[in-house]
């Protein structure tokens, strides 16, 4: 029996069905929601004594749980280790520069939810917390207020534009109202990128992509009462590092706005693909640290850039100390 109405449970139907069978199993994903209610009806039923309470169920899991085993055909696996392929910030993504800077500065970063959560993964690894929508703001305030000397000027919140509209504003009001020194970076790429590029109150377009009113983040932050607001160009690593470093030292709250649209949404191509002069590449690995999937290795382990992926954002060139990475001349 398959149920389409799970609350309230169709108790009569369940009773009738139970009367017709020898043994009753409830196969449900996650919690024993139906199972407990059916037990409470006085019907003997099994389920979560065999099935997991986490994860998705599939044929193999259910079969093994109920029948104890599965046929040999289903047990094949490849012996060799298979490298994972986690998602990563797109080549040229405007978030990359900020996370590179945060890692360099060894700051404690309270993060949030969006594409930029990928900044928590290696090699950038520049996000220390991620709880729920908007939590970066409250976390940075709470830590800044209680962590004492050691963390003074070392905690910064990072939040995207859409998440800021969703649940960041109230946290920022709290920072101002309760006289916190918290620092916040708003990664403003003018779109809800993570879920597939939906418009939001700051993008100037509505759901049907027709022009509409636009909330200006900078004006909004100013209206709250925050006075220190600086803009960051995340494609200039030195400027980004210097600005963040400076803002971390100021007294009172500071909001840094990294102002650069999502390159996927804009279909942005900065230049023709960058390339590497193999003779100059010392295999030092610095460029690996920006975590761009266009950066690959040749047979000698030297860096090469995949021309199908690179959009010429210039970030990797700025970290190469041997001038091995070249911006194409003709544009």
């Amino acid at each position, binding site marked *: 029996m*398959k*149920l*389409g*109405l*799970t*609350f*309230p449970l169709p108790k009569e139907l369940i009773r009738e069905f139970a009367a017709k069978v020898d043994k009753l199993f409830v196969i449900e*994903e*996650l*919690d024993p*929601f139906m199972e407990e209610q059916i037990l409470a009806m006085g019907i003997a039923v099994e389920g979560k004594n065999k099935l997991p309470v*986490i*994860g*998705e169920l599939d044929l193999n899991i259910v079969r093994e749980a109920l029948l104890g085993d599965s046929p040999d055909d289903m047990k094949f696996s490849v012996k060799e280790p298979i490298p994972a392929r986690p998602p990563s910030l797109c080549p040229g993504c405007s978030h990359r520069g900020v996370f590179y800077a945060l890692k360099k500065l060894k700051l404690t970063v309270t993060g949030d*939810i969006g594409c930029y959560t990928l900044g928590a993964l290696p090699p950038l690894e520049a996000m220390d917390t*991620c*709880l*729920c*929508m908007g939590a970066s703001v409250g976390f940075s305030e709470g830590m800044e207020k209680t962590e004492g000397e050691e963390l003074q000027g070392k905690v910064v919140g990072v939040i995207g534009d*859409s998440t800021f*509209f*969703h*649940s960041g504003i109230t946290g920022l009001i709290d920072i101002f109202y309760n006289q916190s020194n918290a620092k916040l970076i708003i990664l403003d790429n003018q779109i*809800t990128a*993570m*879920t*597939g590029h*939906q*418009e*939001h*109150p700051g993008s100037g377009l*509505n*759901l*049907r992509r027709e022009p509409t009113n636009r909330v200006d983040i900078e004006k909004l932050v100013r209206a709250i009462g925050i006075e220190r607001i600086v803009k960051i160009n995340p494609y200039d690593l030195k400027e980004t590092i210097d600005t963040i470093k400076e803002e971390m030292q100021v007294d009172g709250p500071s909001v840094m706005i990294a102002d650069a649209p999502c390159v996927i949404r804009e279909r942005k191509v900065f230049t023709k693909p960058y390339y590497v002069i193999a003779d100059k590449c010392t295999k030092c690995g610095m460029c690996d640290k920006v975590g761009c999937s266009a950066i690959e290795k040749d047979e000698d382990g030297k860096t090469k850039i995949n021309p199908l992926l690179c959009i010429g954002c210039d970030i990797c060139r700025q970290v190469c100390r041997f001038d091995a990475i070249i911006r194409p001349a003709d544009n």
Partner: protein
Amino acid sequence: MSRAVLSGNEAIARGFYEAGGKFAAAYPGTPSTEILENIGKYQEIKAQWSPNEKVALEVAAGASLGGVRALAAMKHVGLNVAADPLFSLSYMGVNGGLVIISADDPAMHSSQNEQDNRWYAKAAKIPMLEPSDSQEAKDFTVLALELSEKFDTPVLLRTTTRINHSKSIVELKRFSPMLRS
């Protein structure tokens, strides 16, 4: 009657359209996002992004109070944000049918947690329907609106990622204008 291969999300949008739905709001969240994007393709429906799920549910409930069939869509954690209006809406009831989509994400394909939102139905005492493919996703959306009006309560439609993003064949009906006095 024509047939099409639709995802669960496309089918929910289609169901809302066929049932004469008039207003829909959401904040994007995987796996629910494409519901509103697809509703937006029907010019007969007012569809909009809200800054968060609480606002989406409130404006949709307001539209229901105004007398039209309305929908709010969100991912499982979005319903946490919208839980405040949800519980009290259960007392207040509806005018036009109101369906709330809760798109759960077992296995956390793109979420920070795993959460079984069936408990919300029990806790808020709101009926819950759960489709098992795209045809049911469409049919249950229509049914949810009918039940909502019949019993004067919002109705939850719970999906999971596998329902939202799986595709299967759906029978399409023509748009049937809402028959309400």
